[in-house]
């Protein structure tokens, strides 16, 4: 395990979520679930983040913001789509102001289903994301990424 997967920093962005998943992401950081025991810190700065947690589906308004956040993050980086809206658009898929899941704009590595996604599955998704991060890091070292 490398230093970055031992202590990954998370950037959370609310694309157009109903708050349900956002609050569950925050709940992961509070005493009952305590994501910080994995060395994970929630940061507000994309340049310091290893993992991007996105809740909610993409619309025309925040498409650019999501892309910009992703581009500002240094390599290697992992995107975790939290909640069914972020995965596919969910119940809002047919709304006129929804383009679809996060993967319509940026590549997604881990999909966390649920409406709202449960803290346990969010933590599971983040831990899965760490494996992906480790793989990407190794590939980068070998020069194959």
């Amino acid at each position: 395990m490398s230093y970055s997967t031992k202590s990954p920093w998370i950037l959370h962005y609310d694309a157009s979520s109903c708050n349900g998943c956002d609050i569950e992401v925050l709940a992961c950081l509070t005493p009952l679930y305590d994501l910080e025991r994995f060395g994970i810190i929630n940061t507000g700065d994309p340049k310091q983040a290893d993992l991007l947690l996105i809740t909610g589906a993409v619309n025309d308004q925040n498409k650019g913001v999501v892309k910009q956040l992703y581009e500002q993050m240094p390599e290697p980086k992992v995107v975790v789509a939290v909640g069914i809206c972020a995965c596919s658009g969910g119940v809002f898929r047919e709304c006129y102001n929804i383009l679809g899941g996060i993967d319509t704009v940026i590549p997604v590595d881990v999909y966390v289903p649920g409406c709202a996604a449960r803290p346990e599955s969010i933590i599971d998704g983040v831990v899965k994301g760490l494996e992906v991060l480790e793989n990407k890091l190794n590939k980068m070292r070998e020069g194959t990424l």
Partner: protein
Amino acid sequence: MTQKYLKLDASDVLGTAEKLHEEGYRMVQICGVTKNGYSELLYSFDKDHDLVNYKVDVPFGTSVMSITPVYWAAFVYENEIHDLFGIDFMDSKLDYKGNFFRMSAVTPWKGKDHEEGA
């Protein structure tokens, strides 16, 4: 809860709002309803938990007087309805000029014209 719905002419909106304001009514909301050939607006006012609703029919292409000179807080609804239904509100105290809700669709709530069929 009793339900009160009154018909109102588009030209009387501001006058009615002034009257209700003087009587101490609180503005609750303005809502638009999609119809063919016109849009229906629903103005709701409340005084001591007594709710009064006014229905206003607005044909496509016509505008309504803004009630923001009386109820300033109405700017939220008027700008929303402007962006969703394409209804213009005249003499608004705070007009976002179509930049309140930024969407990909243009006036998605506006109904069909009569000719296109119901």
